[in-house]
């Protein structure tokens, strides 16, 4: 080692340290807010910038800077005030990889003439060309095919809604995917309209400090966030460390079952409502429920109806634990013991994952869990929960685009996850094979007599100011029979849940592809070259919001109440533009520019936008001040990027306080919690647009609710483990949320997929063994809707008869239509169900022979 002597060695070591320390030296440090669509969107990111590019992203450090294990240094008051770092999830550290990814859409593009949709051959065009092309096409299509010919597949896209509303043409779907059964239940049970954030449940500090037991029912907070990060999991773990028992009821042995829970109770997928009813049966028969609470706060007429059903007085089947064990495979003695423990551990924080509602007839689990909490008196009290809508302290919303959205002016003709059926089934209606009533029933029609709207100035033959009705009646078509006439699809925003519609909308991918073929023109806007982009005729490039867009945001969900600011820490890549600009420009070309965005006159976007943001912020600051929250000045806010609303409060928060403690009636018919809905029990109501007793539109209820029960009942899910089709397709497929993607977003980031996770199909060892499959084998998954290929994850964490494919795989078909990206949506189907619940299950078969790509 002569040549590498001591002095050389020392010099080398100094060089090593120098190089290491120089890595991020001299970089600028900026904050921004995460704008992934996890439901929380509350995390604060600390961005390192050098030469106008992001080099790395660090976690938040607004509180407890330099502290790792924060709970060792903070007090309970700090926990109530959320004086904690808002640490993100693994996706948070990868936004720059997303912004600079090779699949990033940089320029407006037009499909190359002569190529097919899906081939993905595009040519670059200018923004002006793209905007003119799309606006002209919108006018042309509406001109030729009428006002219901341009549509957006999914709701809500507030910007498109506003555009359609002001333009006077265009239709859209109703409802989201994530929690519509819960939203419907909230309206039916508590009179809180589905689209409002309404009353929430109990915040994290509340269950940490006030609950006696935690029940995670199909809820996996180490994966689904409802933000920030896995903060809910953190609080649940701290509660367990403080001695609170935790039970996890789930068809999978999840990470939550391992890390957060004392005990795991496996349950057959889709049968949760049966167990809920049996628990209620024990509570009622053993007189363990909170009679006083029920008499005071629950509509007794409805309670009696539900009680009679549970005791078998109405259908002759008593919903005993013995009845339920055969349905859900949870032994009767376990159900009975659970009910007794649940009654003893009062209040219990019971939280139900949104996933168990996302099956046909999932309305039953949403109402079942909330009904249990109601009869146990755990609703609206410290330490309890209302397992419908997880959210934080009440706070004003921000950035509803440019004032009120004329939402009601846009007919919501179909359930958003039925958009392909809306297109495809029309052929049957036109050929007389299907009646108009049946068509409306199938697509979840949710609209009344079509509203009187100003006739757009762009329609040929129409006099300005005349109503749609006049025009249509002139053509001899009665208004009731006016159906969608879909010819042009307009879709795209930042990470909207349905952004990559083919993968993310619950409708079958293959049906969506067939529906796309029927359209004359498809427009898509987004950030990455996702599968939906390949099927568009025109693609608009959008900014990567977390890093490139200047905006402020809050979320109605999650555990923390905060506002974050996104300063736009780096300029957009290529010619990417914010979606607000895109839709303002389209509006200008449609002649409604000023109505659409009063701030923008077609020049100086940045200045107009800044003026708008500051206006909004001034309004917000005023509202916050009223609530005792001091908002910092604009300059300070745009640097610190965080307002922590919880700082202003000394007590944990829970919803429904004004009802329980203040005696303020709920906006239900009885003014109390309603376990039973008189609307659903009234056949004369079927087929109408539904309003509650206070005149509020019930947003998440289609005109025909099909076989929705008036209260939480057990109805076997469509095509589950008991269906005759298991002879052909023996495995029940469930699609759950992934940890490392938000829908498809981050699918193409190799630091996540392939590095820390594998997109695989979960199957039990017995099912694998019977098919000669070992972990890691590529397997072919198929049913009557589609074919896909994935590696097998062979595990004892699920039981036989079921398989799991996580949501948001990218649709990547080969020439035979076999999906090698394997989005579970290729296996979904148009199911018989009350259609508020978006079903993400079906039956499939799995085999070893995959063929060649």
């Amino acid at each position, binding site marked *: 080692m002569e040549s*590498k002597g001591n002095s050389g*060695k020392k010099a*080398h*070591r100094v*060089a*090593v*340290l120098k190089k*290491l*320390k*120089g*890595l*991020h030296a001299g970089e600028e440090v900026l904050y921004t807010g995460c704008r992934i669509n996890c439901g929380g969107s509350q995390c604060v990111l600390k961005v390192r910038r050098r030469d106008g590019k992001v080099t790395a992203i*660090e*976690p938040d450090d607004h509180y407890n800077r330099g502290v*790792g*294990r*924060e709970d060792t240094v903070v007090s309970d008051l700090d926990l109530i005030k959320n004086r904690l770092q808002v*640490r*993100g*999830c*693994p996706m*948070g*550290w*990868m936004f720059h*990889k997303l912004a600079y990814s090779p699949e990033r859409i940089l320029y407006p593009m037009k499909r190359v003439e002569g190529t097919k949709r899906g081939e993905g051959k595009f040519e670059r065009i200018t923004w002006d060309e793209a905007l003119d092309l799309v606006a002209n096409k919108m006018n042309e299509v509406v001109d030729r095919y009428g006002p219901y010919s341009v549509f957006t597949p999914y709701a809500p896209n507030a910007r498109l809604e506003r555009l359609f509303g002001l333009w006077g043409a265009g239709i859209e779907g109703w409802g989201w995917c994530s929690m519509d059964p819960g939203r419907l239940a909230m309206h039916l049970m508590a009179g809180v309209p589905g689209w409002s954030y309404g009353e929430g449940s109990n915040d994290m500090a509340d269950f940490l400090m006030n609950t006696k037991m935690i029940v995670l029912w199909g809820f996996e907070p*180490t994966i689904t966030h409802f933000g920030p*990060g896995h*903060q809910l*999991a953190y609080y649940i*773990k701290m509660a367990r460390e403080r001695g609170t028992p935790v039970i996890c009821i789930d068809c999978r*042995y999840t*990470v939550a079952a391992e*890390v957060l829970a*004392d005990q795991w109770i*496996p349950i057959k997928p889709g049968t949760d409502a049966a167990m809920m009813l049996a628990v209620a049966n024990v509570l009622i028969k053993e007189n363990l429920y909170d009679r006083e609470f029920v008499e005071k706060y629950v509509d007794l007429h409805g309670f009696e109806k539900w009680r009679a059903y549970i005791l078998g007085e109405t259908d002759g089947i008593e919903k005993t634990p013995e009845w339920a*064990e055969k349905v859900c*495979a949870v032994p009767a003695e*376990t159900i009975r*013991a659970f009910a007794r*423990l649940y009654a003893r551990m009062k209040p219990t924080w019971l939280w139900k994952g949104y996933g168990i509602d996302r099956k046909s007839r999932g309305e039953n689990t949403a109402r079942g869990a909330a009904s249990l909490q109601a009869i146990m008196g755990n609703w609206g009290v410290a330490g309890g929960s209302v397992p419908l809508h997880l959210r934080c302290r009440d706070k004003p919303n921000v950035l509803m685009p440019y004032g009120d959205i004329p939402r009601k002016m846009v007919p919501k003709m179909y359930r958003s996850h039925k958009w392909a059926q809306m297109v495809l089934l029309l052929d049957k209606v036109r050929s007389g094979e299907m009646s108009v009533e049946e068509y409306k029933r199938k697509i979840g029609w949710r609209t009344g007599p079509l509203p009187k709207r100003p006739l757009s100035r762009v329609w040929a033959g129409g006099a300005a100011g005349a109503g749609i009705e006049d025009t249509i009646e002139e053509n001899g078509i009665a208004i009731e029979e006016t159906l969608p006439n879909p010819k042009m699809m307009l879709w795209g925003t930042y990470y909207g849940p349905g952004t990559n519609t083919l993968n993310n909308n619950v409708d079958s991918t293959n049906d969506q592809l067939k529906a796309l073929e029927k359209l004359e023109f498809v427009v898509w806007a987004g950030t990455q070259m996702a599968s939906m982009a390949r099927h568009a005729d025109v693609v608009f490039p959008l900014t990567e919001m977390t890093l490139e867009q200047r905006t402020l945001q809050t979320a109605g969900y999650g555990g923390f109440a905060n506002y974050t600011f996104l300063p736009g820490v780096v300029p957009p890549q290529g010619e990417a533009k914010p979606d607000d600009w895109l839709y303002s420009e389209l509006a200008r070309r449609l002649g409604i520019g000023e109505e659409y965005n009063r701030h923008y006159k077609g020049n100086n976007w940045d200045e107009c936008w800044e003026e708008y943001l500051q206006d909004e912020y001034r309004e917000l600051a005023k509202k916050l001040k009223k609530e005792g929250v001091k908002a910092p000045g604009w300059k300070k806010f745009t640097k610190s990027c965080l307002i922590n609303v919880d700082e202003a409060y000394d007590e944990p928060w829970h919803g429904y306080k004004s009802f329980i403690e203040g005696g303020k009636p709920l906006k239900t018919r009885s003014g109390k919690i309603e376990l039973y809905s008189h609307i659903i029990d009234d056949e004369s109501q079927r087929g109408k647009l539904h309003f509650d007793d206070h005149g509020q539109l019930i947003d998440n209820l289609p005109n025909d609710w099909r076989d929705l029960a008036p209260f939480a009942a057990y109805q*076997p899910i469509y095509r589950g483990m*008991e269906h*005759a089709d*298991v*002879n052909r397709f023996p495995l029940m497929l469930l699609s759950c949320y*992934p940890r*490392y993607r938000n829908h498809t977003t981050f699918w193409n980031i*190799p*630091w996540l997929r*392939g*590095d*820390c*996770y*594998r997109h695989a199909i979960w199957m*039990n*060892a017995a099912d694998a*063994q019977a098919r000669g499959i070992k972990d890691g084998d590529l397997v072919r998954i198929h049913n009557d809707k589609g074919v896909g290929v994935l590696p*097998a994850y062979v*595990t*004892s964490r699920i039981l036989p008869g079921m398989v799991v494919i996580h949501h948001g795989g990218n649709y990547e078909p080969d020439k035979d239509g076999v999906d090698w990206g394997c989005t579970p949506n290729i296996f979904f189907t148009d199911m018989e169900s009350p259609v508020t619940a978006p079903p993400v299950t079906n039956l499939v078969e799995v085999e070893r022979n995959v063929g060649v790509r």
Partner: protein
Amino acid sequence: MTQYGFFFDQSRCTGCHACSIACKGWYDLPPGPLKYMRVYQWEQGAFPNTRLGLLAVNCYHCENPVCATACPNEAIFKEDKYGAVLVDQERCEGERECWDACPYGAIVYPSDKRDEKAQKCTMCVDRLEEGLIPICVTACSLRALDFGPVEELRKKYGELDTLEGLPDGSQTRPSVVFKPRDGKKQLIPWDGNKVLELWQQRGPFAATDLPPTFTDKDAVTRPAPGTVGRDRLVLKPKTAEELMVATRNDE
């Protein structure tokens, strides 16, 4: 020199990789086996006693760094402010003696090619110099990690220097304190065999003449060897591919 070190609470680790991804982001490491922080997930037992093993392992900057001793080129050294064990890439000749010596698998390489140079966790010395703490620690949502002078950590969290599946610390004297994972409790009676019997039946609403959900109960409770993926902890995978398998989950 004050020896700095880590605390890892296995009972809080969800295996989410926030630590490892934040580390890769900070050090601009490529996707693949170059993992300064390795997050293992593996399965133990089978139904009705399934457990999930979760473990995040970085370098513990040992008081007796056997990797450094093993290096024929003196390329690994203990930095003298925080006690971080660092690799001098200029001196490393890729002989992998350090990899053989380290019982934690802390030395990593970009690939299996023989001339790749050793890399490892740096204790984020660069961040320490800025008054920050290692990025893995700040990234953990469940606050399973802590960092500080190791003596302070021992006072705060105890002396445990090993976990099930890890080597005991007597030889290398790692600068780390551990807390093991939680046990399971039966809060309410639950009979796994009864569950299997119930699960095997299709249920009261089943169509007629359906086969049982499964036929071979043993295949559920005692899966054939090699069927289940990651059925053990492989702390020191021998190849890049094995490392990827061991440190990748399916969530």
